[in-house]
């Protein structure tokens, strides 16, 4: 359990949010031309990093907006929070 600084609402409890998984997975531009392997990669395969990971979150019990987060999954420390469409502030 931790606090999340929603870019729209400010600091709130994590239980107000829904995790949306790995961020920056780009939807295929030409879905009809994708091979089965490429579909599997897009739909199912995940980095599942132990360490610093880029994620999507939704403030589902608040403003209901999606945003991105950089978080260390080994200790749940949040490194940065940024809006959709923005470049990650840390590498």
């Amino acid at each position: 359990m931790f606090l999340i600084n929603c870019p729209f609402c400010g600091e709130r409890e994590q239980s107000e949010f829904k995790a949306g998984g790995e961020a920056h997975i780009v939807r295929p531009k030409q879905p009809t031309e994708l091979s089965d392997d490429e579909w599997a990669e897009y739909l199912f395969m995940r980095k599942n990093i132990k360490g610093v990971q880029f994620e999507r979150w939704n403030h589902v019990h608040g403003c209901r907006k999606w945003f991105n987060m950089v978080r260390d999954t080994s200790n749940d420390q949040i490194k940065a929070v940024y809006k959709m469409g923005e470049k990650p502030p840390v590498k």
Partner: protein
Amino acid sequence: MKNKYSIFSLIKNAFSYHENWEKAWKDPEPKKEYDAIIVGGGGHGLATAYYLAKKHNMKNIAVVEKGWIGGGNTGRNTTIIRSNYLWDASAGLYDHALKIWEGLSQELNYNVMFSQRGVMNLAHNLQDVRDLKRRTHANRLNGIDAVYLNTEEVKKFCPIINTSQDIRYPVLGGTLQRRAGTARHDAVAWGYARGADEMGVDIIQNCEVKGIKRNGDTVEGIETTKGFIKTKKIGVVAAGHSSVIANMAGLKLPLESKPLQALVSEPVKPIIDTVVMSNAVHAYVSQSDKGELVIGAGTDDYVSYSQKGSHDIVEGTLNAILELYPIFSRMRMLRQWGGIVDICPDASPIISKTSIKGLYFNCGWGTGGFKATPGSGDLFAHTIANDEPHKLNAAFNINRFVSGDLVDEHGAAAVAH
């Protein structure tokens, strides 16, 4: 040859104040090379090594474990064993395991305290009732014992359940698998370790894998904190850390690792003699032989390796427990902990070869791996020894995420994953 555990060995050792029991397994340093290495010394990994040695005559093998054996999810789960899964592939897999459980203490000469006290799954809404009846029929077609109980029968089987129809999620019925039950989780790891050690398997603890050495598409060995170990076959059974090992080999898996929590109460006299699970409100409870209530909560929805879950998850589970069992309202909780579970998109495991020759993965057990321990080890050993899956784990290959032939137990199983 190890001394057999028996009433006579117990009496004999009593005379020396139990100070001369021989060690159940050695603590060897790694050799330079093995025929196969199992990464992960939990129940599944030790069972794999045991069956590799016993059924496939591979004795020059090792299990490497970064901590101590059975110190991960094997010692953190709620010890429930059942096989009442909906789909044919899952039914085959889990009932294979349940059949091995039934003779495991005798086979290992180690009391795993397998107790077939029955597992009851509750229905709280009309869709639950339909799903549970459907699953009961599917189970019986697959030769798995299952009966559907109405509310009165649920109350009769477990009298402390609140079957009032005025509660938020009333009990409308349930299913019962009588062959299901619980076992002592640590004993499973220790029993398999002792059995494997006796056949010559090296169990190497405090040995963390740091890298997997490849020559093109073939594995050559593992880099560990105790140096490089050469091998042609690597079986990875690393549970929550499967993706970490996969990344070392340049593979990606369809897994997300999340915290799953459990808690136990202070010990009390026997009050519940079965296992009751409830999918809709996500609460399940049984009582250990020490008298503690063993309560399983749900997973958090974010990836984390921290072995800590959120309090609201525990709170939600305890709310449900208190409504279903008002008698527990003044009990105090003794301990609470988390384990990291690796979950597949279809909530079914992977027991499979990979695109890299000699690299095998047994992972994705999610929230329900303990029950499968003996079957998982048996089938994974078969897959490693023959470089081909057994017919019971053929459906659980990694390519199902490419072909789309998923084993979709998500929502179909007897408890939410």
